[in-house]
């Protein structure tokens, strides 16, 4: 299975260029090629669960060459990226009929998927930057796909802020190369473990924090997200909110801080503060929105705050040599919430796209009473809203419960952490309020006379909605110890070993 790792990058790139070459005359060929490129990726990603390994590209060994590293943490993100992208491609077979130049959409989409797979698999810092830029540039073009007023303005704002973030990341990589002399993540980890930390090292750490924070839309760096996510077409919003801010933002900063730079308690405190700010500011700005997709975008910021809070808590406890069981629980809660959020947030965006495709509007005040006309969309949207609000037995409840339990356990050591528990529960309550508002305005109430003749979505859109809802219901089963030790425990182990990652990779996994 390790020999097939480069296929995760080669298949999307080959598919994208093949579509540009052949599919500009035949419309159906673009659909077929898109599905044929993303279905093998899904199958390969599911087959990779449970393996670990290192692949040396071009037969150059580390530290000279580029490695592709498959360990527990990469596998979770790899599965999430490929599952959600397959659902989004299936959905966009019929959603993108309203735009022209559908083949360009598929080519850019496959480029974005290839870039994200590269970010998740790579073991080299500059290669991380290159794949991050591939995925980001493809997403800037996809946000502006419709070429209306608002989409262009949102895309320009996203482009400027995203490029500033990428430039900060490149400056950080340059400073780190100047300090250690290596670009390979494992070699940098080994060099950092025995190096004295000068002010240049803190400078590089701050640059990485700001750069990846802009990509992950944590709170001081979030202003691009509420404009970019509503303006994009619905499957692109699902990809942006469901996987891009996770693979480029949260995965990259976790990998760099835990395994390359080494977790310190100051880092843990900063990341926890960023997480708490994101949670509260995101949800209080979301409650007052009257645009369906803009409300969902603000909720993305808030849920990312949950994930970052869990990971920051784990970092803080590991750095202060606290009990590793509590740190493991906090990290597990964060990663589980990452996986759950990908599924239910993309389901919510696809439902909103389905509503917009049939009715033509996104404003909550103009919608109403769609429950008898669109039953599949209504059931999926209800399941997703209950998931995000944290109602048992759907998947959102379990991950939020684990994060709350982890904060309570940490409060036994540091009593001021009880504030975190209170804030988490309050934010969850406000999330429930805002989603009840969404359900009431969109589906209940009376049907306006404009919408008398609408029907439910077509076959492909319904198929992806139903599959994602089934995933939402059944992902709570990942808590059973048998499944958990296969899927999540290797990830937590990788993050807990910190700088020893370097030694393990260089001597062969």
């Amino acid at each position, binding site marked *: 299975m390790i020999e097939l790792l480069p296929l995760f990058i080669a298949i999307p790139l080959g598919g994208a260029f093949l579509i540009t070459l052949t599919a500009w005359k035949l419309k159906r060929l673009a659909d077929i090629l898109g599905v044929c490129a993303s279905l093998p990726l899904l199958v390969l990603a599911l087959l990779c669960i449970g393996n670990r390994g290192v692949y040396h590209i071009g037969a150059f060994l580390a530290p000279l060459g580029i490695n592709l590293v498959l360990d527990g943490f990469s596998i979770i993100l790899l599965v999430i990226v490929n599952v959600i992208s397959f659902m989004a491609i299936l959905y966009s077979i019929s959603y993108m009929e309203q735009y022209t130049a559908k083949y360009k959409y598929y080519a850019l989409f496959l480029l974005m998927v290839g870039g994200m797979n590269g970010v998740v698999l790579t073991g080299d810092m*500059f290669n991380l930057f*290159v794949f991050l*830029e591939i995925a980001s*540039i493809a997403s*800037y*073009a996809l946000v*502006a796909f419709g*070429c*209306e*007023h*608002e989409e*262009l*303005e*949102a*895309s*320009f704002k996203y*482009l*400027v802020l995203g*490029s*500033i973030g990428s*430039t900060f990341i*490149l*400056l950080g990589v*340059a400073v780190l*190369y*100047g300090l250690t002399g290596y*670009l390979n993540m494992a070699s940098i980890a080994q060099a950092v473990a025995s190096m004295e930390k000068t002010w240049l090292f803190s400078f590089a750490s701050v640059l990485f924090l700001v750069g990846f924070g802009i990509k992950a839309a944590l709170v001081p760096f979030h202003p691009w997200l*509420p*404009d970019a996510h509503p*303006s994009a077409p619905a499957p692109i919003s699902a990809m942006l909110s469901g996987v891009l801010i996770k693979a480029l933002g949260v995965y990259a900063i976790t990998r760099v801080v835990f395994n390359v730079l080494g977790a310190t308690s100051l880092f843990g405190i900063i990341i926890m503060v960023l997480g708490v700010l994101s949670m509260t500011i995101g949800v209080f700005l979301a409650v007052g*929105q009257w*645009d369906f997709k*803009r409300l969902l975008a603000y909720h993305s910021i808030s849920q990312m705050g949950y994930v970052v809070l869990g990971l920051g808590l784990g970092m803080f406890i590991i750095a202060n040599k606290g009990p590793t069981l509590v740190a493991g629980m906090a990290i597990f809660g964060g990663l589980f919430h990452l996986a759950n959020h990908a599924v239910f947030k993309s389901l919510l965006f696809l439902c909103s796209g389905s509503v917009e495709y049939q009715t033509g509007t996104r404003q909550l005040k103009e919608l109403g009473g769609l429950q008898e006309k669109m039953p599949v969309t209504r059931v999926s949207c209800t399941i997703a809203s209950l998931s995000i609000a944290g109602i048992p037995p759907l998947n959102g409840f379990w991950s939020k419960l684990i994060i709350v339990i982890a904060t309570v356990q940490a409060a036994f050591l540091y009593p001021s952490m009880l504030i975190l528990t209170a804030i988490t529960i309050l934010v969850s309550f406000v999330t429930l309020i805002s989603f009840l508002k969404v359900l009431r305005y969109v589906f209940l109430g009376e049907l306006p006379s404009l919408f008398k003749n609408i029907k439910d979505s077509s076959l492909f859109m319904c198929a992806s909605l139903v599959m994602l809802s089934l995933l939402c219901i059944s992902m709570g089963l990942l808590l059973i110890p048998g499944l958990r030790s296969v899927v999540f425990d290797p990830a937590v182990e990788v993050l807990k070993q910190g700088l020893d990652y370097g030694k393990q990779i260089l001597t062969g996994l």
Partner: protein
Amino acid sequence: MIFPLCFALFVVGLYCVLTKKNVIKIVIGLTIMEYSVNLFLVLLGYKKGASFSDVQAPIIEPVTNLDDFFMKAVDPLPQAMVLTSIVIGLGVTALAIAICIRLYQRYGTFDISKMRRLKG
């Protein structure tokens, strides 16, 4: 001494992105920022020698002496990184200018303080 100058160029580019109102000037500021980081990367490879003739380009020819070469040649890895980074910057600039052309078509102006449709 030269590395803080690269950082000063970076700050100049950041100032241009933050304060200018014309969309094209914002794109120019973005390119200045990227070029300053490329400059910083290339200058990392320099090997400090006693005199100017002690520094050599990293090209191996049939007549080079290999021990001498390893003492004197500059580091080729930052040069490869900068080539890739210049091409990435080209891609971002091309996309930004294409979006600016479309923005002019829609709004009729290049002034960014007049494009305020997305609020809240």
